[in-house]
């Protein structure tokens, strides 16, 4: 697909999802509550602990709030419009376009994902980054990035994370070609994704024994790598390795998704007369 076409698909889906902003506001509220709960438990935990915490208090606070901002980046659910398309057979129209169907759906998924992330993240960022300090909640506010370089690395890693989340989400969408129903996958996915990405407990707080495993899995590239870069837990000098690994995972998952989709399309039965 040509870049201009890809961009057109992404932006169209982005704008379509943007129509449902009410849900995003409700989500912002949920994330604030979540953020406070996680932050309070982790702080209490750190205070009672004997060993030094792997994350400084600022790093921890930044990790939790930015994690909450990026909650909708988690690829644990399927785009309902894609599900509906396969169930009703409207997917027929996707298949009569002279473009690569995987690319078309990847762009759709990317637009959907980024739209949800933006509507959720921007208000929350303003809240924890601007409103909290003004309201005298300094201890709870989002700390500044470790350095300008850290911020730049964070943004690059986040961009890779978005592409990675889309590639993971595509696996879910492709399985719908067989199951007609995302239920099975969406029951399993959240547990893995939420835990292994660091959304519930920051990955640096996991036991040392599982660190190599976490580092090798793709889920770490979603938020953990960007957030550690932001707080300086991964120094700028060491940024390349983890970012490159995330990018490699993204490429591998895209190859896998394409392969699955090609098989899925060969057996698909377009529903409905």
């Amino acid at each position, binding site marked *: 697909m040509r870049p201009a076409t890809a961009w057109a698909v992404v932006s*169209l889906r982005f704008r379509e999802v943007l129509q449902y902003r009410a849900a995003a506001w409700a989500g912002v509220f949920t994330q604030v509550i979540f953020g406070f709960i996680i932050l309070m438990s982790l702080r209490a935990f750190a205070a009672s602990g004997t060993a030094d915490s792997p994350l400084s208090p600022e790093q921890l606070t930044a990790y939790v709030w930015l994690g909450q901002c990026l909650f909708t980046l988690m690829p644990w659910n399927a785009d309902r419009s894609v599900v509906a398309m396969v169930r009703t057979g409207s997917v027929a*129209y996707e*298949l009569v376009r002279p*473009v690569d169907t995987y690319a078309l759906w990847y762009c759709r998924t990317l637009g959907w994902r980024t739209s949800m992330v933006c509507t959720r993240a921007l208000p929350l960022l303003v809240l924890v980054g601007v409103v909290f300090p003004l309201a005298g909640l300094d201890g709870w506010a989002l700390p500044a990035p470790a350095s300008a370089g850290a911020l730049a690395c964070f943004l690059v890693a986040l961009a890779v994370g978005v592409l990675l989340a889309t590639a993971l989400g595509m696996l879910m969408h492709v399985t719908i070609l067989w199951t007609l129903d995302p239920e099975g996958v969406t029951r399993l996915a959240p547990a893995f994704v939420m835990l292994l990405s660091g959304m519930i407990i920051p990955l640096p707080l996991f036991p040392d024994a599982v660190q190599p495993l976490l580092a090798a899995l793709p889920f770490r590239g979603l938020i953990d790598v960007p957030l550690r870069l932001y707080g300086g837990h991964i120094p700028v000098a060491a940024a390349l390795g983890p970012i490159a690994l995330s990018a490699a995972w993204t490429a591998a998952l895209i190859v896998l998704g394409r392969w699955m989709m090609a098989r899925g399309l060969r057996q698909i*039965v377009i529903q*409905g007369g």
Partner: protein
Amino acid sequence: MSQIVVESLTKVFRIAERRAGLRGALAGLVRRRNREVRALDGVCFQVGRGELVGYIGPNGAGKSTTVKVLSGILVPTSGTCEVDGRIPWRDRRAHVRNLGVVFGQRTQLWWDLPVVESFELLRDLYAIPADRFRAVGDELTRRLDLGGLLNVPVRQLSLGQRMRCDLAAALLHEPGVLFLDEPTIGLDAASKLAMREVVRTINREQGVTVILTTHDMDDIESLCQRVLVVAEGKILCDGSLASLRRTVSSERHLIVDLAEGISWNGLDGLPAREVEVAGGRVRLGFDPENVAAAELIGRLTARYPVRDLLVENPPIEEVIAKLYAGGKA
């Protein structure tokens, strides 16, 4: 040289049978029973460049399945088909570049966005040059009367308004082949006429090959020189509407309005059959091979005082219904 060649196309759907009730569902978890549906059973036909063919048949005959296979989005169980020398499902992307499709009942428009956004995306997907896009878009907007609809979100359109937009969407890239699966569903009289006019024009003026599926026989009568009738996955007949009529029966109808106060006392030896008697109006069926209309009228008026007379073909719906019934037998 035919543009579309379909040879012994067969599609068998395998359906995991769901048994009724809880016990059935539990049994289904253990062992699945499969049922086969033969949607297409050796379909053969050819369509030449620039033809406009009606593809009709009763519900479940396999029309939509054929369209899906020809569009390259469904792989048949056996048999072949070629469009412009390409096998649709094998060479899908090259094939669909020159193809326009309308699957009635579904929409290709983006539900939550104004119609024009979907059109612009199609421009990008098909890489339509800006000037062609503008020219074709303006033309379709005028012919299908879309002026007031382009900036309305698709979800707010009525069914008929959406179908008109969907037809336009299928034509923006000026395809050389057009498959229409029930495109007139839900259209009012004026929209139907507009839709037919557009299909007729692109067929006549641009030589676009069209395969049209519909249950509206007026669509067929007003558009198609040739009709393919499919039933239970097999082609039943292939020919003009007139030849279709002849295969079913050559019967014609004579409608008689009797004069005031006269009542109908039966045929009494007239070489015809009573189709319907309602008050002062009698509908007779006769075979023109057997008796000329003029002779029948002469003998009738000698017996009954008549106010008005009309000879017509039986409604095409009736012909088709008979044909379907015959095909099933």
